[in-house]
Structure formats: C-alpha cells, structure tokens
C-alpha cells in the first residue's frame, strides 16, 4: 500500500514482508518448476585477468539489472559514459519480496533472470544457499574491502572469502525524537534502555495520548536490528547444511522481557508501521520517538512535514553505556547472478555503481541513500549537512559515527522471509496482544527449527 502511494526512495530500504501483490494461485503454481539449482560450487576462484576484463568491456553488451531504486538512470549514465560499449537496462521488478519472488521464479525456470539484481543484506544468504550468486572476488571485488564500512563487508562476504555482492546503502540504527515533547515533560534523552523504559512510563502517565515510542508489531527487521545491537547471534551458518538457530537465547529473552513488559503496561504503542495510521501518528504527535535506521531521517522529513524542526537525532539507548553498539536495519547491495552470460561486464558494473566516488555520491544526493563507503561517510559535504527538519542538527554525521559501532559478525538465516513471517505471528503478535513475549520467543524458535529441519538442515538450537 505505502509502496504504491508513497514514491519515497527511503521506503525502498525496508523489507516488505507482507507482499501486497495479488499474485494468483495459478502464478503460484506455475512458479514452481522443478528447475535444478545444482549450480555447482564456485569453480576455481582464479582471478579474471585484466586483459579479459578490457576485452569484455569493449565488447558491445547489454546488461539487465533488476532494481527498485528510483532514478537509477543517473548512476547508470556515469557507467555508460566510461564504458560506451556496455548498455545497462534497468528493470523495476517490484520491491522487496515481490522482486525476490520473481527473481527466484526466473532462476528456477532457467531463463529470464537478469544479469544483476538489487539484494538486501538479509536476503543474501537466501540466494547463496541456492548457489544463485556469482562470487565477485575473482573480478577484483576483494580489493574493494577497505573502501566499505567494515560491517557491510562482513554482510556481503562468504565463509571462504567470497564476495557475494557490493554494498550500496545502509541503515545503522539510531533514535529520532521530538525535542518539544521531551522538553515539555522534562525528559532527558535516554542514554540506556533503563532510562528509556523509565521515560516511557513517565511520558505516558503525564500524557495518555502520547507514547514514547511505537514498536511496530509487524517489523521483524527492527527486532533483528535491536538483537544485533544487543550482541545476539540468532543465526549461524556453518557449511552448507549446518545451521544454528537461537532466537530465544538469553539475549533474545532480555529483549523480549523488556519490550513485552513495556507493551503489556501499555506505555508504548505497537501500531503496524508504514500504514496510514502510523503516518498520522507521527504527524499528530502520538509517538515521541522513532527507533529507526540511518535512512529514517530523510524518510521522516518527507512523511511528517507538519512536525518540521521539532525532531532531533541521537544514538540508540544502550544496554551498556560504556560500550556503545548499534545494529543495522535495511540497506541493500548489488549482486551478479551466477546464471549471467556477461559475468565480467556485470561484475564490473556492480563494483563501479557502488564504489565509484561520483556514482556513490549520487546515491546519497539523488536517492538520499545512507552511504556504505568510508570516503563518503567522512566527506564534509555529506556529514556537514544541517537539516532544518532536525533543527539544523548534523544528522548524517551522527549516523556515520553510529555506523562504526555495528558488529560485523551478525549473520542472517538462509530463509529470512520465513523467519520474518514467523516473527510477526509469534513475537510481534504477543507485543500487539500484550501476551507473554517470552513464550512467543519459544514459539518462534520452535517454528524456525521445524521449518529448517523440513528443509533438510541439521539444526543446533539453544
């Protein structure tokens, strides 16, 4: 819904779990070809020679790139100017889950898949488990490691040093808050989660129409981001079929008790996000903070115009104030599909698009993407931006610093969509219904373990 009604670039960075696509059952069935995805393990990772690259880049080629990023043509033009022989056709195949569904269908059918695709961080393992992505390491991508923020490189790297994708934009998490509401009720910006909980109770008591925050019961991405901040390792993949799932371990339980407690006491709201009611909530001052990602500031300034100037940004409250940490929510990468016939040109495009300084900068200025390259994150023209919506605060600088506190080791399961849906139906539901979140975590763990076993994984649980 919001996807079609609000053409905001920032929206592209969140996962749309609830596919609004009315794909008929017929399509569902025709989508399930018995395609063979035995792509074979990556053949000898021998570096591609420069002469081969030069030759490929001079050969007239058309690359197809599936991406939902608006106005991508501007960045593509930079590439085409440098390599006139290569034409890049950008196709918008939907966003988030719709895009992945089409991609998966094309990959199974064995034809119709693009050369490159937009892939979010959490979806990378979903595609590497089926051997669908090309290792960009031999194409020179390993050399780019130093250019990108550490945790983003951790996200795109495989266990054997493969480079599955090139980071494009990111979403380290922070807190946006209404300074006016805080001031009116004498609330200090909470530094720790304990402060935050106390503030939530105080604020709601002082004004029952206002909640310190809204924890969207349909937003597993935010939960994962907060798990990430808390230092959890909910998923671990070792080898091809061994998997550890511990979404109800001690760290998760701590989080569950915390948010479940606040929700049960009714001092935070749990409205689903990116809905009309949620937008209205921001505009009418129902929520005093938004725990969001680095793309949030640009998004909010476009969606809650009536509250301009009243917002400020701060890091997330901490579990341990002496060791500031954050997690990531959103952002995406460019990946090359293994089925491509133009591997060299596609790999060069993926790298150019995201690491070329001019192209990377365009993403920040045109699409208001939050950058993944170190160069841009220390570029004064980016960090010095003082947005009037935030009272002239240098929000980019703040989030750039937060990015350094994101743990690079966090891993995603090879079936994120399932994990996300199950979260909504267990943990999310418990928050919305004010029921036992601890029990819900256990149900989530059981569902995921059952699912993983059905899919043939060997599962180690908590």
């Amino acid at each position: 819904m919001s996807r079609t009604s609000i053409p905001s670039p920032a929206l592209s960075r969140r996962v749309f779990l609830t596919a609004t696509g009315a794909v008929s059952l017929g399509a569902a069935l025709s989508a399930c070809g018995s395609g063979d995805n035995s792509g074979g393990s990556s053949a000898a990772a021998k570096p591609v020679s420069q002469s081969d690259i030069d030759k490929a880049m001079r050969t007239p080629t058309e690359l197809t790139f599936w991406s939902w990023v608006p106005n991508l043509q501007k960045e593509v033009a930079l590439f085409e100017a440098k390599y006139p022989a290569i034409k890049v056709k950008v196709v918008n195949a939907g966003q988030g889950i719709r895009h992945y569904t089409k991609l998966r269908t094309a990959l199974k059918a064995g034809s119709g898949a693009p050369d490159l695709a937009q892939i979010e961080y959490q979806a990378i393992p979903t595609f590497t488990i089926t051997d669908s992505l090309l290792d960009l390491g031999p194409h020179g991508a390993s050399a780019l490691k130093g250019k990108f923020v550490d945790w983003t490189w951790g996200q795109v790297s495989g266990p054997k040093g493969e480079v599955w994708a090139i980071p494009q934009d990111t979403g380290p998490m922070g807190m946006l808050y209404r300074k006016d509401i805080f001031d009116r009720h004498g609330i200090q910006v909470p530094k720790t989660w304990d402060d935050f909980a106390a503030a939530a109770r105080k604020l709601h008591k002082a004004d029952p129409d206002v909640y310190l925050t809204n924890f969207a019961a349909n937003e597993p991405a935010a939960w994962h981001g907060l798990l990430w901040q808390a230092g959890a390792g909910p998923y671990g993949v070792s080898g091809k079929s061994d998997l550890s799932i511990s979404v109800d371990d001690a760290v998760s339980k701590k989080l569950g008790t915390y948010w479940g407690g606040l929700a049960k006491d009714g001092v935070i709201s749990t409205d689903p996000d990116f809905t009309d009611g949620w937008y209205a909530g921001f505009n009418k001052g129902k929520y005093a903070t938004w725990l969001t990602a680095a793309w949030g500031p640009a998004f909010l300034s476009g969606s809650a115009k009536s509250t301009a100037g009243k917002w400020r940004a701060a890091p997330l409250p901490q579990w341990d104030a002496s060791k500031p940490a954050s997690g990531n929510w959103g952002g995406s990468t460019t990946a090359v599909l293994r089925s491509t016939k133009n591997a060299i040109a596609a790999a060069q495009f993926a790298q150019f698009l995201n690491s070329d300084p001019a192209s990377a900068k365009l993403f920040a200025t045109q699409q208001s993407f939050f950058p993944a390259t170190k160069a841009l994150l220390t570029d004064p023209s980016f960090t010095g931006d003082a947005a009037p919506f935030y009272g002239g605060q240098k929000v980019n600088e703040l989030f750039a610093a937060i990015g350094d506190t994101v743990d690079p080791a966090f891993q995603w399961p090879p079936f994120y969509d399932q994990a996300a849906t199950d979260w909504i139906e267990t943990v999310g539901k418990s928050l919305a219904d004010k029921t036992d979140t601890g029990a819900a975590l256990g149900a989530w763990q059981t569902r995921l373990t059952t699912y993983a076993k059905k899919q043939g994984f060997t599962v180690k649980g908590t």
Partner: protein
Amino acid sequence: MTAATAPPAPGRKGAGPRRRSVAGPLFVAPFLILFLLLFLTPLGYAAYLSLFQERLVGGTVFVGLDNYVTALTDPLLLSGVGRVALFFLIQVPLMLALALGFALALDSGLLRLARVIRLGIFVPYAVPSVVAALMWGYLYGPDFGPFAQLSREIGIPAPNFLSDGWMLSSLANVVTWEFVGYNMIILYAALRTIPHELYEAAAMDGAGPWRIARSIKLPALKPALLLTLLFSVIGSFQLFNEPNLLMKIAPDVISSSYTANLYAYSLAFTGQQVNYAATVSFLLGLVIVIASYGVLLTANRRRTP
C-alpha cells in the same frame, strides 16, 4: 462431393450424423485445446508437484501422498478452511439477499434515478481491491478513522473493527460492498428477460407488485440465483485479496494462514514450500468442488418435486 455421392432421400438421414462427426470436433477443438492448455495442464502439474518435496538442502524427493497426510492434519489449513466456511455461511446469504432486493427494486420501475442508483451500486465492483482495502483500512482505523473519531466525540467506545473478534465481519463488509453490485447486475439482467406478457396476465388476475415479485419474478430468477450462489461459493473459499491487503494494517490478527488461499500463497512465496503449497491448493480445489456440487445438488433436489 458429398452431394454427388449421397443419394437424395435416404442419404440425408445417413449423411447428417457423418457430417456432424467432422464438424463437431472441429467446433469444439478451440475450446478443448485451451481447456487442456490452461486448465488441465496446470491442474495436472499441480497434482504432480504435490507428490514431491523440494528442500533447500538435499534437493527434490518423491514423497507420495505424504504432503496430503500432513495437510489433512495441518491445524493451520483446517482453521483457514473453517474460517472461510463460516465466512461463506454468514456473508453470502446477506450479500445475495441485498443484491436480490436491489435488483427487484430497480426492476419494479418505481425508483427515481434508477440508472444512477444502478451504477452507484455497481461502482464498488470496478474499484480496484487495492484501493478498496486502502479506503476501508482508513475507515476502520482505530485511531484516526472516522468511526473511531466520531465515537470519541460522542464519548462511547467504538468497536475495534480490526481486532480479532471483528475482523471476519469487517472483511465480510468489504466483500459485500464490493460484490453486491456485481450480483445485482446478474439478477437484474435475468429479471429483464422475463416476458412482459406474464406481468400483464398476472395483473389481469389481480396480482399486486408484491405478489408478482413472489410468484413470477422469484421463480424465474432461480437459475440466476443459483449462478450467483456458485460464484459466491468459489469466491468465499478462495478469499485472498481482502485479507491479504488488510494484513498490512492488522498483522497481529490476520496471519499468513488466515484463509486457505492465503496459506497456500505464503507457503509458496514466503516459505518456498511449493510442493506443499500445491498440495494445499489441490485440496482447497477439492473442497470447492464438493461445496459447489453440494449447492447444485440441494438446489436440484428442491426443484424436482
């Protein structure tokens, strides 16, 4: 050629069936080919798929009827089917009664602006369901929806239309709003085909408008009513769009297995369990066939005596 070989009189008797035997299949062929390609093939393919199990690790294995055994005891599927059955029992009679009422009222010729009203009732059917869900989502909204705001003004608590207890009724309301016009048009068209002489004869016999409606119009409408009922059986059991769209604003109430169709969809696209999704779809198809057949059977039995 045929004319030359066939003797005049007895030939006509003999040539008739022979000619038909060539022309018949030819006429039926376009239908049969399309039927085979677009209906039987996917159906057969789904049946074939439902006998396998594809895993992320380990590939595809033949499992026979295992998927069916799982599905028949799957509480998520059973509750989904149960929910749409309940939906069918409550929503469909209501919607058809409304559609019938509107059709009779329009046909009576007593309404002013009949054309405008007819169009007005039909328009929701033309509204894309995405737009419809967006609109109803706003109307139902517990914070900023008009009903919620109005009741807050008056000071009485508004029902939360998006809560667990109300959701099925809220969905029924949206579906009724969408499809009343569609069914009304079918019934209205059927009413227009009733020969006027019947009304004149009835009027001569002293029947008033109510009597005419009951004794002439209603019996004449039976086939059309049966048709709308059949459409509604299929529509109810395949309920997908509306819950799928309201899911976004009420994720804690509408789960991915809220209706059987939604369940099949999320199995295939969220869980990548295409084989199990095929099984669920196949079983759902079976349920629909049985329910439709049941409706036909009851209707026919009632008509025969």
